[in-house]
């Protein structure tokens, strides 16, 4: 089975690609030989990560990415900037 997804712009959105997962049990379903097609690399994304897996990965990642930045990091930047001032 060959699944090709035309991806117009941002690659970041590919995990939300709309291809249907019909047989996730078969680990090889999406490993099509077509995925190695040359050229056109920037705009055709291989459906390497099925939606279900991509979504869970995103949730693990986004849960942290969506947290507010802890104060220690802005404090660190201030400190780094101060140290630099001191050097001059």
């Amino acid at each position: 089975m060959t699944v090709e997804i035309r991806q117009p712009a941002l690659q970041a959105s590919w995990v939300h690609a709309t291809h249907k997962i019909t047989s996730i049990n078969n680990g090889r379903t999406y490993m099509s030989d077509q995925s190695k097609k040359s050229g056109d690399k920037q705009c055709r994304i291989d459906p390497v990560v099925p939606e279900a897996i991509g979504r869970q990965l995103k949730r693990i990642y986004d849960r942290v990415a969506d947290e507010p930045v802890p104060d220690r990091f802005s404090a660190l930047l201030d400190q780094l900037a101060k140290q630099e001032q001191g050097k001059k």
Partner: protein
Amino acid sequence: MSVPNQFREDLLEAIPSLRAFGYSLCGNATRADDLVQETMVKAWANAASFQPGTNQRAWLFTILRNEFYSQMRKKKREVEDPDGYFEASLFEKGRQESHLELQDMKRALATLPDDQREAIILVGASGMSYEEAANICDVATGTMKSRVSRARSRLEELLGDTSTELSQAVG
């Protein structure tokens, strides 16, 4: 040479994704934040070598990744804990996993070889392109593609039917 304001602003802006990348790599929130801190200090010290206009997020990811592996090498000499990935963080205060299904994914991720785990996180979660991910990990784009695809096959095998059901439940 002083560090440009733009560099500083972009660094601040990159912190959430650096934390997420760090957490996905090491599976431990406290350690992830230490990695981010170290990354910021190194980035600042090397600000002069960063070319403005190039991809700063990828540059920072590279620093964090290098830091992660250099810490791993040091740690290996101490205690090797192959099951430590994500396990410790699961029961951390304030970070309790309310979604059981993500535990399956975390366990599955924990079983992947490091190179495959980072590949699928970079491309599958952080939104990096294959090319960017390949640069960050210092490998050819083709190598990155095959790592992602092996990681994916492995995750599918491990998660089996569950992920289909879950995606429907979540979606």
